[in-house]
């Protein structure tokens, strides 16, 4: 997979939810190669602290305009610094990295938990010829800015919140079973916390629906060189989340 490094200009940067930012960049050269599920490795500042790049999923890409969108949550020093980047400045991006989702679905079900919804935006847009059902999970209704994003690109939206302040109370996994029963899907795409992924993958398997999951791990190189991100696969071998993933077939990584 070809990849590159660009000094991307920040076009827009705004807070779209509590501690969540949407960052739009001009990243010609990189954008044109980007597929849903891939990520970029971002140098959040030009300094020695923080030292390492930060992996962020591609939330949207517009090849014609050369623009790239990232949606990220401020969780630590790196994302805090990133959030201070002003329009007009430039960010050093490496990418696109990793393998994306397999775009072969007539009746896709998307399942995203929390910030895991970010890569599903670009995925939903890429699948737009099919009617899309999405299950969105969040802690409470304050996290449901996602609805604004997804309502124009998905036909059916199901919402769960941990506290029941919006949609159904509980986790995404709790509603998947019903949804899989109520409708017929030929592919499940999931991104979010690991317990969610495992739950979704198990249910999809029971229903015989193919399932792809997007994993996360701490990454130094992002290109398969350092082995900081490897995980055990079901075939007994190891996989690199950064290059063999982050998207895997569920059965490749979960028993």
């Amino acid at each position, binding site marked *: 997979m070809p990849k*590159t490094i660009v000094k991307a200009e920040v076009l827009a940067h705004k807070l779209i939810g509590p501690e969540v930012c949407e960052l739009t960049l001009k990243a010609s050269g990189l954008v044109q190669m980007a597929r849903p599920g891939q990520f970029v490795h971002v140098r959040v500042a030009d300094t*020695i602290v*923080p*030292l*390492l790049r930060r992996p962020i999923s591609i939330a949207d890409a517009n090849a014609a305009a050369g623009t790239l969108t990232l949606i990220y949550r401020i969780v630590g020093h790196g994302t805090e610094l990133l959030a201070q980047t002003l329009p007009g400045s430039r960010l050093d991006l490496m990418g696109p990295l990793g393998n994306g989702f397999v775009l072969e679905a007539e009746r896709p079900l998307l399942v995203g938990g929390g910030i895991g919804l970010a890569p599903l935006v670009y995925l939903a847009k890429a699948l737009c010829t099919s009617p899309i059902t999405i299950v969105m999970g969040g802690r409470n209704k304050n996290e449901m800015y996602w609805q604004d994003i997804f309502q124009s690109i998905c036909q059916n939206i199901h919402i769960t919140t941990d506290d029941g302040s919006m949609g159904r109370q509980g986790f995404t996994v709790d509603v998947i079973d019903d949804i899989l029963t109520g409708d017929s899907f030929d592919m499940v795409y999931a991104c979010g916390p690991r317990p969610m992924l495992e739950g979704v993958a198990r249910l999809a398997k029971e229903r015989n629906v193919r399932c792809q999951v997007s994993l996360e791990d*701490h990454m*130094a190189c*992002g290109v*398969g060189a350092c082995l*900081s991100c490897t995980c055990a696969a079901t075939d007994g071998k190891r996989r690199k989340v950064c290059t063999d993933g982050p998207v895997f077939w569920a059965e490749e990584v979960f028993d």
Partner: protein
Amino acid sequence: MLAVDIAGIKMKTPVMTASGTFGFGPEYSDFVDLNQVGAIVVKGTTLSARSGNRGCRIAETPAGMLNCIGLENPGADQFLTMTLPKLANYDVPVIINISGNTVEEYGQLAAKLSVTGVAGFELNISCPNVKEGGIAFGTVPQSAASVVREVKKNTTLPVIAKLSPNVTDIVIMAKAVEEAGADAISLINTLLGMAIDTKSWRPVLGNTVGGLSGPAVKPVALRMVWQVAKAVRVPVIGMGGIMTALDAVEFLLAGASAVAIGTANFVNPRASVDIAEGLKDYLVSRGLKQVQDLVGQVNNKL
């Protein structure tokens, strides 16, 4: 201007890549022309495949990082059949970093891997992340020497001993491996460190402790290179926190004949080539003809 010969290994530039930080090379070929790298030192290779440590394997620290990869690698056979053929496409010396559980294993690895396409061996007698052997070989002079002797018996290729900084006296270690026949010495490997998550009260790393690398360790690395270069006759390959051409100049002045770039590759995949270019600019700006004019030239007379 930049060409160097390290123990018979001819390199176009004195800027190599450090083991474990550059994969086998091709991982970075979208960003760097591998033909312009001084030498590629590949990921630590063992006789059989290893799956490495469980849990989180890296953590960021102030101006540095900890890792506890634990020598995950596909093993020597896989390296020979799958990786080496791919590297034949490039005109760059390939040095294999090898790690054994016993002295004999080092010898077996050297014998097995002494094939066309391999320019030399770097003996990882200093990996802090594996339980067996590893660090003991790197902290006891006699053990280090016996590893070197065993490898020398099993190969005619140049042998580079890579030293651990986690020792009281690095010069004793360096002299021991030199006497045992090492053709060059590389240093430093990582410093043993730790980080704790104040939320979960657990070590950040799956292996509790890990190896510290990056700019944070540069002063320690430079000091050790300086001490060792004064004390041995074989060439020294300096590494530890090199991020810029001026960092590389410091190591050369301290006595290194070549340098290796590790953690910097993660930040800037082009680091090894950018630093070589910067080195050239430095030589030109100082009116120097060759990189050798810098080696060991630090002047510490008052």
